[in-house]
């Protein structure tokens, strides 16, 4: 049988971002898949190195519109790691509150999109309707529905109004009721189950081999969660479970996300409760950052996001490196998509909740003087590391 190539991207209704998958099919069965990223490169790391630390945090919030507080949290962790800066207790609760609210809205957004991808537009619209109250909570807390601008080195930028707490709890109750309804509907629908169960299985072994993170790994039975493994902010002060399932198929990834929404809601309740009693400042004033390097980790809705910052004692980072979860989750398609029907492969592509604008921070330029190959990318990277070393050691 002859092999056909199905291009998914750079523009394709499956994923609204620019990406490229070359799916090779025989009939309808996927035999091979090639991935190519780099269509969304915006040079965030380079821009960040031209900005002050405070501006950098503002900038990394713009890396992704959906997990727009995960990057700032990881980034402030990195800066705080340079000088071992402590943050006030109240700020720790507020950070966790914002982070978990974002997890709810991101997972609901994915649920809706997943519904759309399997042709279930009603689920799409319903999930997004129930996502709306979460955005309202954000608006009450920060004044913005997205891009909250809450993180600062040494704390948070804005306090949670104590008068708003009852309203927030009321909206949370509303969300909980709807989530139970959606979870029940997903559990009871035989057509949905037959469509998602056993589809795009990522085995436990493969999840470890490909270093998958976040819900993608947890659905395959890998218990990895930065919130538990290396608790920062208020995560060691609140009580929650890490959701792990074993099957590794798309259905389990859905289940993990739905249950995580409920866990997040639990965390938010505890944070709101604590915010009633814990008072005090919300930010430690940090005057300067000493030379050195620091790392920041945070469990974004899609998995671990990692920031690296190097300071030379000035007010600007001289190196800023970001690693987003989708960057390690996207290659798992090689393991999970081969040998399954095309219709299943496409929902599998969507099931890791890939986020391309997070992922892409390097690009291969073709044209101009010469055609650059992927080996050159490695060379460029090494040259850059050399350059940084020279500036640090002054050699």
């Amino acid at each position, binding site marked *: 049988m002859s092999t056909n190539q199905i*291009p998914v991207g750079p523009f394709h209704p499956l994923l609204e971002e620019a990406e490229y998958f070359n799916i090779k099919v025989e009939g309808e069965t996927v035999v091979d898949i090639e991935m190519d990223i780099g269509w969304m490169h915006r040079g965030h790391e380079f821009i960040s190195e031209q900005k002050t630390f405070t501006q950098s945090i503002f900038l990394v919030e713009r890396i992704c519109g959906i997990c727009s507080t995960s990057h700032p949290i990881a980034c402030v962790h990195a800066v705080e790691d340079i000088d071992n800066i402590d943050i006030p207790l109240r700020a720790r609760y507020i950070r966790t509150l914002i982070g978990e609210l974002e997890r709810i809205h991101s997972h609901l957004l994915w649920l809706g999109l997943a519904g759309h991808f*399997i042709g279930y537009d009603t689920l799409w619209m319903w999930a997004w309707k129930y996502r709306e109250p979460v955005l309202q909570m954000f608006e009450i807390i920060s004044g913005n529905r997205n891009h909250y601008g809450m993180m600062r080195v040494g704390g948070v930028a804005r306090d949670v109004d104590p008068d708003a707490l009852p309203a927030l709890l009321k909206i949370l109750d509303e969300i909980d009721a709807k989530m139970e309804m959606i979870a029940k509907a997903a559990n009871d629908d035989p057509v949905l189950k037959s469509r998602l169960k056993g589809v795009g299985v990522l085995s436990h072994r493969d999840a470890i081999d490909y270093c998958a993170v976040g819900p993608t790994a947890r659905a395959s039975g890998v218990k990895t969660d930065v919130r538990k493994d290396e608790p920062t902010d208020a995560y060691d002060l609140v009580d929650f479970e890490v959701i792990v399932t074993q099957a590794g198929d798309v259905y389990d990834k859905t289940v993990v996300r739905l249950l995580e929404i409920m866990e997040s809601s639990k965390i938010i309740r505890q944070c709101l409760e604590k915010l009633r009693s814990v008072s005090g400042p919300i930010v430690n004033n940090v005057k300067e950052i000493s030379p050195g390097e620091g790392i920041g980790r945070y469990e974004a809705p899609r998995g671990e996001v990692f920031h690296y910052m190097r300071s030379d004692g000035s007010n600007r980072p001289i190196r800023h490196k970001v690693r987003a979860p989708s960057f390690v989750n996207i290659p798992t398609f090689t393991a999970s998509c081969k040998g399954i029907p095309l*219709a299943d492969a496409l929902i599998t592509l969507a099931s890791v909740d890939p986020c391309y604008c997070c992922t892409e921070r390097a690009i291969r330029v073709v044209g101009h003087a010469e055609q650059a190959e992927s080996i050159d990318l490695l060379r460029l990277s090494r040259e850059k590391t050399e350059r940084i070393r020279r500036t640090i050691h002054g050699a």
Partner: protein
Amino acid sequence: MSLLTLFYLLIFPGLLFTAVLGLSVGWVDRKLSARFQFRVGPPFFQNFYDFIKLLGKETLIVRDSVQSLFIAAPLIAFAALVCISALIGVALFFGASFIGDLYVLMYLLMVYSVMVILGGSATGNVYSSIGAGREMKLLLADELAFILVCLVPIVKAGYEIRLSEILSAQQLGGAFIASPSGILAFLIALICIQAKMALPPFNIPEAETEIVEGPFMEYSGPPLAFWKLNHFMMYVFYPFLLILLFLGGFSAGGWGVLWFILKYLLIVVVMIIIKNTNPRVRIDTALHFFWNIAFPVSLVALILAVLGV
């Protein structure tokens, strides 16, 4: 061809009636779906605007395609659908038919699917060819069950292969849906029609998020307008066919007209509800469903009908 035949074909119940009613019912579909999803939905004339706008757009033809086939496919399908709606409508509203017209109907219904396959294959686009392949598999899946359940009314009408005989048998002895075999056959026919119209859960050939509208991907301008119109016309004659075969048809006197409209809207609403409460299934699930579940059930319905139940 007499003037009356031309009237049947072009005005009522053929082209004009089916097209206008189809575009209007298309609005019911879109509005109801929107309300299901907490959206507002389009204004009544939206489908008419869309159709007229597409007629005025440029027709882009892929250079490597089989151009004549590419253009002819939507038009032949349209012609077949006009014939079908005239055939069903004339039997339904005027009681006129000829021996074996249900067979002719079966063939004409298949012409539409064949034209989707040919039009999709003519472009050479991978998405279109996969969509055409899926349409073919879906046709193979639903056709057997559909033909079997269409035999049920024939058997119940005393082995008469005439739509008018089927109608008069129902007007004398009550609608066929009132019997066990009738209701089984009706339900299977409803699901088969969902597949024949490529509505969710069987919108597999068009699957937007997988193969980007499949066979219709390369179409633009007037040919696309005709594909859209074809789709909306099916909202008219498939429910009519169901009413004709199972629900007792149409009678002009008394509450007849209102009763007929009610039956028609009921079928359309059920179709829209099925459409909005199901995800798209895989093609192999659809094949499995039609061959392993729908086919035995329709066979049982047929045997029950032969036994007179």
